């Protein structure tokens, strides 16, 4: 089992989509929302994912393919 902390950022056209529900339903991943701020034009959700490493990777690839941005918690790691 693996555990990852990620941040999803939704643009306005994706705010209404049940991305986190589908991530839990379509992949063997347990999702646990820790903090979120969802507005009409932009939203973000910080959550913890539990599951097999490959399944989490597959799930995150799917999330990225929907247009939702996936980042590590705490923003960019790489710096100037």
């Amino acid at each position: 089992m693996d555990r990852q902390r990620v941040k999803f950022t939704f643009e306005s056209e994706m705010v209404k989509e049940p991305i986190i529900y589908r991530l839990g339903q379509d992949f063997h991943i347990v999702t646990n929302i820790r903090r979120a701020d969802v507005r009409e034009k932009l939203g973000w959700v910080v959550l913890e994912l539990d599951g097999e490493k490959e399944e989490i990777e597959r799930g995150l690839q799917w999330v990225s393919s929907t247009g939702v941005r996936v980042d590590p918690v705490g923003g960019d790691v790489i710096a100037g």
Partner: protein
Amino acid sequence: MPFVSGLKCRECSREYPAEALNVCDFCFGPLEVEYDYDTISEVISADRISKGPLSIWRYQDLLPASGENPVDIMAGYTPLLKAPNLGKRLGLNNLYIKNDSVNPSFSFKDRVVSVAATKAVEFGFETLACASTGNLACSVAAHAARAGIRSVVFIPSDLERGKVIGAAIYGPTMVAVDGTYDEVNRLCSEVGDNYPWAFVNINMRAYYAEGSKTLGYEVAEQLGWRLPEHVVVPSASGAMFTKIWKGFNELACLGLLDGVAAMSFGPDQNTVHHPAVTTRMHMAQAEGCSPIVTAWKEGQTQVKPVRPNSIAKSLAIGNPADGIYALRVINKSGGSGNTVPESDVVDGIKLLAETEGVFTETAGGVVISALKQLAESGAIKPDELTVAYITGNGLKTQEAVEGVVNPLMVKPTLSSFEEALSERTAIRR
């Protein structure tokens, strides 16, 4: 001993011991260092600071690592230059340049890394690591060399040669990652979670970021313990921007500024605002990566991540960790966000070099072009005391200004020289 009382979540205020942690276990918010300011106020004074070393460690009472045996390659205490020539061009009579390009590894990163490296050694880490597009890698490798510990630096595989050499010379394990920006970012985050290394901008982040406060302290000290009316600061993650503001407010609350009465820090040390701190904080970002300034211009409270596409690579942070906090500082200080067109970045570098003899990297070009915008718009009035922060050296981004090389080509004779000189002079006429 540092006067640190622990770490505190910036979002939910949960408290943690001063360990190698970067996010709150409960809400995943960022952790910030908490200080025992009551004790600090009993020992600190302008006189004590003035007797300290000529480096950031003169402010050791306000840093989260012990100044008794710091990993110090003499970062900080860089010149604050009065800039009359640039000021004349811009119509500013009271302009200063904080020239942080002359730090030991040629950028302000030495300030933050010196603190992070000192803390890493205190914690017993044997490896100092980072993911970087240039300046940070150089500084981490240099400080690890000084500390006698191993360093591992992750860089994008297409990084400019000058930056690669500038880091490699110190002997780090260098990992060149073949991937997109987001892939590099994700990999380094995973590595940080899986290896017992002191990653300066991951598990050392809370301590590391505090080093930037010294940019605020030094300007105040060099101005005779007073604050400027305006500062123009480049921004990537937004951390340095918020820490300069924090530094100004710490000095005010501790009663260290000339004619300013001390004040309690209250329950939230990181957002305290002393009414005597009236400096307007102006942020500068390049158009190709300006998520924080864009949010400010649109009146948003959130920062929308972007994919960076800018020649100012040291500012190319698309998803800035401290973006929302920096946004709040702009608003609280009555400052502004300024986007600089990519085409103006090199103009800014040249303008500073030609007027004041300071060769800065692309981030400095962004600052000078933003300063020009602020002067032209009247946001900064001619006689207002203004400081522009120059945070990196031009030798690191020479590719950006290669076009300036245009020598007179002559034969080794006086006649050839004079002919070429008269032609060039004629063209200039």
